[in-house]
C-alpha cells in the first residue's frame, strides 16, 4: 500500500506540474497569436485601388492605425472591419444616387477624423477588465515560465559543465595545462551551486519574458508599454528573493551569478521584447517531465537517507595519527579519568550539525557535572580535516592552528551537547570534531575526540556575504 501511495503521489505531482505547464504554454500561445506571433484568421483589408493611385480608404486606415497602439492581430481586425463597413456604406450611398467620389468622401466623413477614431478604439480595447486579466495572466505565465526556464537552465548548465570538463581534459592532455579541480575538496558543492545559479537565472529571465508577452496580449497593450512594470517587479521580487529568501548551496561564482539575476530578469523584460517567444509544444513538455522528473524522483526514493539521526562512533582511541597535537594536549588522567567521556555521535541536516558526547555508563553514581567539576569553558570544536584525496593521512589538518568553529557544550542529563552551524560557513570540505576544556591550571586540554564529516554552505546570498568566515 505504501508503494502504491508513493506511485500515486508521483503521478499526481508530475501530472499536476505537467498540466500547469501545458496551461501556461496554451495561454502564452494565445497571447502570441494576438501580438502577431502566429497565424491570423482575419481577412485582409481593402485592396489597393487599380492604376496605382492612393486608395482613400487605405489612406484613411493608415492614418488611423498609428493611434491604435494595439497588438498586431487587433490592428488587423479593426482595419478589416472598418474596410468592410466603408465598403457597405459607399455601396449604399452609391445606390442612393451619389457619385463614387462623393460617396467615398461622405462615408469617410461619417467615421470622423482617423486619428480620433483610432484613439477612441484604443480606449475601447484597453479596458480595465482586460488590464486585470493581463496582470493575472502575466503572473500565471510567469510561474509556468519559471518552471520551464528552470528545466531548460538545468540542461544548459549541464551542457556547459560537460563542455568545461571536455575542454579541461583536452587542455590537460594536449597542452599540459591543468585547471583547478572544482569537484574535489568540497565534494562538488561549488559545481552544484553554479549549476543551480545558472538554472534559476534562466528561470527568472523566462518567467519575466513570459509575463510581459502574455500580459501584453491579454490586456491589448504593446509589450513595450507593459515591459517597464514587469522589469521593476522582477528587480524588486527576484532581488529580494535571491538575496534573502532563497537558501541553497553557495559559492563565490554562484553568488556573483545570483546577484545579477534581477538585472538579467529586467533585461529579459525589455530587450527586444517585441520578438515572439520560442514555441514550446505540449508533447515536448510531457517528454521533458517524464524524462527528467520521474528518474529524479525514483533516484530520490532509492537513495533517501531519512531524517538526520545520531550515529554512534568508535570509542577507542585513534589508531592513525589524527594530528591531535594541533588542537591541544590530552587531558591528564588525574583531572579526567580515561574513558570517562565517550563519543556519542552527531547528525547533520540543513539546520545544523548536532553533536553529543556521553558519560561512560560504567561510571555509576557519577554525573557529567561531577566528572567535569575541574573543568570550565568546555566546548565542541570543529577543525579542518585532511582531504580524502590524500590516502596516507587522516584526521585534523595541521596547517591550521585555530578551529573552524567552537560552540559551548551544554550538559543535558548524562550528555554534553551542542549544535554546530557549519552550514553557515563558507568553508566547504572535511571537518573533525573534538571536545576541549580549560583545566585547573588554566590551560586548554583535549577531553575527547569525535569523528569527521563533510560540510557545505547552505544559506542565502546575504548569509554568504555576511558570514564571518
Amino acid at each position, binding site marked *: 500500500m505504501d508503494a502504491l501511495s508513493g506511485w500515486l503521489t508521483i503521478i499526481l505531482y508530475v501530472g499536476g506540474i505537467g498540466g500547469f505547464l501545458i496551461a501556461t504554454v496554451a495561454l502564452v500561445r494565445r497571447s502570441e497569436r494576438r501580438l502577431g506571433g502566429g497565424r491570423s*484568421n*482575419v*481577412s485582409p483589408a481593402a485592396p489597393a485601388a487599380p492604376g496605382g493611385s492612393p486608395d482613400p480608404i487605405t489612406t484613411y486606415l493608415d492614418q488611423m492605425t498609428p493611434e491604435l497602439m494595439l497588438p498586431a492581430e487587433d490592428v488587423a*481586425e*479593426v482595419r*478589416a*472591419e*472598418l474596410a*468592410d*463597413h466603408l465598403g*457597405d*456604406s459607399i455601396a*449604399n*450611398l452609391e445606390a*442612393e444616387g451619389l457619385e463614387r467620389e462623393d460617396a467615398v468622401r461622405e462615408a469617410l*466623413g*461619417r*467615421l*470622423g477624423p482617423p486619428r*480620433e*477614431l483610432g484613439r*477612441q*478604439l484604443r*480606449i*475601447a*480595447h*484597453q*479596458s*480595465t*477588465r*482586460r488590464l486585470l486579466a493581463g496582470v493575472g495572466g502575466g503572473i500565471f505565465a510567469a510561474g509556468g515560465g519559471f518552471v520551464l526556464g528552470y528545466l531548460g537552465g538545468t540542461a544548459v548548465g549541464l551542457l556547459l559543465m560537460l563542455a568545461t570538463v571536455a575542454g579541461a581534459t583536452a587542455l590537460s592532455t594536449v597542452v599540459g595545462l591543468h585547471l583547478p579541480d572544482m569537484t574535489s575538496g568540497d565534494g562538488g558543492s561549488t559545481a552544484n551551486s553554479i549549476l543551480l545559479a545558472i538554472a534559476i537565472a534562466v528561470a527568472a529571465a523566462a518567467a519575466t519574458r513570459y509575463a510581459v508577452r502574455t500580459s501584453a496580449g491579454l490586456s*491589448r497593450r504593446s509589450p513595450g508599454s507593459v515591459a517597464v512594470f514587469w522589469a521593476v517587479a522582477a528587480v524588486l521580487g527576484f532581488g529580494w528573493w535571491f538575496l534573502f529568501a532563497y537558501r541553497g548551496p553557495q559559492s563565490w561564482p554562484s553568488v556573483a551569478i545570483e546577484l545579477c539575476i534581477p538585472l538579467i530578469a529586467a533585461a529579459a523584460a525589455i530587450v527586444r521584447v517585441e520578438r515572439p517567444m520560442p514555441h514550446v509544444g505540449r508533447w515536448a513538455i510531457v517528454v521533458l517531465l517524464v524524462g527528467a522528473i520521474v528518474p529524479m524522483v525514483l533516484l530520490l526514493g532509492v537513495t533517501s537517507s531519512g531524517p538526520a539521526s545520531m550515529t554512534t562512533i568508535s570509542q577507542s582511541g585513534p589508531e592513525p595519527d589524527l594530528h591531535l597535537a594541533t588542537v591541544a594536549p590530552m587531558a591528564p588522567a588525574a583531572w579526567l579519568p580515561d574513558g570517562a567521556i565517550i563519543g556519542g555521535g552527531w547528525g547533520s541536516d540543513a539546520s545544523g550539525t548536532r553533536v553529543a558526547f556521553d558519560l561512560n555508563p560504567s561510571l555509576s553514581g557519577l554525573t557529567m557535572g561531577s566528572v567535569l567539576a575541574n573543568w570550565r569553558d568546555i566546548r565542541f570544536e570543529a577543525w579542518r580535516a585532511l582531504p580524502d584525496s590524500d590516502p596516507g593521512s587522516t584526521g585534523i589538518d595541521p596547517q591550521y592552528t585555530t578551529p573552524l568553529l567552537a560552540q559551548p557544550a551544554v550538559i543535558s542529563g548524562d550528555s554534553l551537547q551542542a549544535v554546530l552551524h557549519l552550514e553557515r560557513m563558507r568553508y566547504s570540505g572535511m571537518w573533525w570534531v573534538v571536545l576541549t576544556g580549560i583545566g585547573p591550571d588554566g590551560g586548554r586540554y583535549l577531553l575527547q575526540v569525535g569523528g569527521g564529516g563533510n560540510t557545505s554552505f547552505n544559506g542565502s546570498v546575504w548569509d554568504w556575504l555576511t558570514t564571518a568566515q
Partner: protein
Amino acid sequence: MNGTKGPNGGATALAVERRRVLDALRAGRGEALTGPAINLRIGGSSTTHLTTADEHLLYPALHSLEADWRLEAMWLADAGGRRRRVYRRRRLLARSGWIWHG
C-alpha cells in the same frame, strides 16, 4: 465602462451609442449582426438618416461593449465566402452556434 460619464455625471455620447447598440441587438432576438447591419437598425432603413456625429461612435461602442463582455464577436463567412465580423449579446450560459443571415 470607459468614458461613459460626462463631466456633470450625465451620459456621454458614447454611453448613448452603447445603449442604442444593445437595443438594436436585443431586438434581433439573439441573432448576430454586422456593424453595418447594426448601423441600419439604429438609423432606420437608410444610412442617410444618421448624422456623422453618431456613426463615428459605432465601432468604439461595439468594441467597448465587447471588451466589457456585454457582446461577443466572431468572424463568419457570408454566402459569398467573404469573412465579416458579427456581434451578438453575450449570455451567462454560453450558446453554441451563431445565427447570422449573411
